[in-house]
C-alpha cells in the first residue's frame, strides 16, 4: 500500500477485524518491522528507527486498549510523555485545560478511571510528546458513543495546530465524520480511498466486506 498524511489532516483507516489496521499503526510506531517498503517522516527515512527514537522524531501511538501504566499516577502517566524532550505547545497545564477533570485526580492511580477517562489520559500522554503525527488505534473500543463523540470533538483543535492524525476505527460513521481522507483496508490491502464527502455508502460497504472484488480471488 501507499499511504501519506499531511499536516493538519486526519486520515482514517477503516476495515473489519483482522484487516491489518492495528498492525499498520504499530508498524508505523516501530513495534513491528515491515517486511518490505519504507516509512518517511517529514522527508526522513525512519524505517529502521526503533520506537523510542520515532517518538523523539515526532510520531507517537495511542495504543489499542489504552494501556496506561498501572503503577503510575495519572500525572505520572502524562509525564512519561515528556521523555522524548520535544519542544511544543503541549505541557501539563494545557492538558489539564483540555481535560479539566484530570487536575483533581492527578495523584490517583488510573486503574479505577472509566474507559473514556482512561482514553483521555492515553491521548493526553501522547500529546505530551508534542508529536507531529498522532496515531490513534481504535479509540472507540469499549466506549459509549457519547464518550467517543466528545473525544473526537477534540480533533479539530489538534489538527488546527498543524498535527497530522492517522486513526484506525471500527466505528465507520465516526471515521467518516472526523477525517478528511479515508482508506478502507481488507486483508492488508487498501480497497478504497477518498474524501468522505465524495464516497457513496454503498461503495464503502462493498470495499469493507470485499464485495467489489468478487471473482478476483479474495473474500
Amino acid at each position, binding site marked *: 500500500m501507499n499511504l501519506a498524511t499531511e499536516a493538519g489532516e486526519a486520515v482514517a483507516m477503516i476495515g473489519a477485524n483482522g484487516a491489518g489496521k492495528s498492525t499498520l499503526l504499530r508498524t508505523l510506531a516501530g513495534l513491528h518491522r515491515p517486511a518490505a517498503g519504507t516509512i518517511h517522516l517529514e522527508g526522513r527515512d525512519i524505517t529502521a528507527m526503533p520506537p*523510542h527514537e520515532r517518538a523523539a522524531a515526532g510520531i*507517537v*501511538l495511542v495504543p489499542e486498549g489504552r494501556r496506561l*501504566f498501572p*503503577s*503510575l499516577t495519572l500525572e505520572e502517566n502524562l509525564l*512519561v510523555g515528556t521523555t522524548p524532550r520535544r519542544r511544543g505547545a503541549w505541557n501539563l497545564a494545557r492538558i489539564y485545560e483540555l481535560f479539566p477533570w484530570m487536575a483533581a485526580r492527578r495523584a490517583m492511580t488510573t486503574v479505577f478511571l472509566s474507559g473514556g477517562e482512561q482514553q483521555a489520559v492515553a491521548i493526553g*500522554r501522547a500529546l505530551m510528546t508534542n508529536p507531529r503525527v498522532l496515531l490513534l488505534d481504535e479509540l472507540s473500543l469499549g466506549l459509549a458513543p457519547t464518550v467517543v463523540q466528545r473525544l473526537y470533538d477534540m480533533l479539530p483543535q489538534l489538527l488546527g495546530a498543524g498535527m497530522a492524525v492517522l486513526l484506525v476505527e471500527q466505528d465507520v460513521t465516526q471515521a467518516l465524520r472526523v477525517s478528511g481522507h479515508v482508506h478502507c483496508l481488507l486483508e492488508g490491502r487498501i480497497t478504497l480511498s477518498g474524501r468522505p464527502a465524495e464516497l457513496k455508502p454503498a461503495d464503502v460497504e462493498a470495499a469493507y466486506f470485499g464485495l467489489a472484488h468478487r471473482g478476483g480471488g479474495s473474500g
Partner: protein
Amino acid sequence: MVWINAAVQGVLLGGLYALFACGLSLIFGVMRVVNLAHGDFAVLAAYLALAVIAAVHVPVLWAVLVAAPLFALVGYAVQRLIIQRSLDISPLTTLLVTFGLSIVIQNALLEVASANSQSLPAGLLTSGALRVSGQLSLGYLSLLIFGTAIVVIVALQMFLARTSMGRQVRAAADDQETASTLGVNVRHVFGIAAALAFATVALAGVAFGMYSSFDPSAGPQRLIFAFEAVVIGGMGSLWGTLAGGVILGVAQVLGSQVDAGFGVLAGHLVFLAVLALRPNGLIPSRSV
C-alpha cells in the same frame, strides 16, 4: 533477656540481608529477572575491596567509593550484553546463563584468590558496641550496616518515585512496548536499573566482608538469603524486602540460640513456610 538480645541481633542482621536483597528485588520488580550470580557479584566486590586496600592502603569505607561506581558500570554492561540478550531468548535462559556466570565467577575467584577465608578489616567498627543495657549491646558495625540499608532503600524509593528516569523505569516495568512508543529507551533504562542494583550489591559485598569472613564459594549462600528475604517480604516492594530481611535474620539468630547449627536451617524453614502459606509474601505488590 538473652532472647531479646538475640532478636535484636537478628534485626540488625536483617539489615545486611536487606542490603543484599534490595538489588535483587529491584531487578526482579523491573525486569522479572533473577540474577543467580547476585551473591557471587557481592563476593567479587568484597575481593575487589580487599585488592584496593592492599594496593592503596585506604580504610575500607574508601574502597566502597571505588567499588560502587565500578560495579554500577559492570552492572550496566552485564545487563545490556548478557541479561538482555538472554531475556530476548527466553526467561528460562536468564536463569541458566546467570547460573553459569555464578559458577564461572566462583571458580575464577578460586583461581585468582585461593580458597582461604578472608575478611575485610573494619578496624574500630568491629569491636566497638553501643551498650544499651546489661545484656543488650548493639555493635557499631551492625548499626552502620542497618543504617546503610535504610538509606539505600530510601534512596532507591526516591529515585523511582521522584525522578524522570525512575518514572521511566517504572513505566518500562509495567509495559515495555507502550513505554518505548512514548520515547523510553527500554534497554538503556533497564541498564540503569541494573547499574543501581549492582551498586547496592557492591555495598552489600563490602558490608558482608566486614561483618564476617568470606571465600570464593560464599556467593550462593548469600543469594539464597537475599532471595528468601525478598520472598518473605513480598516481591516488588523495597520496604517489604527490609521486613523480609529482618524476619530472616531474626529466625536465623533465634534458631542458632536453640542449637548452634540450626540457624540457617531455621531460616530455610521459615522461607518454605511462607511459600506454602502466603506465596505472595507479607507485603505483596506484585503476585508470583
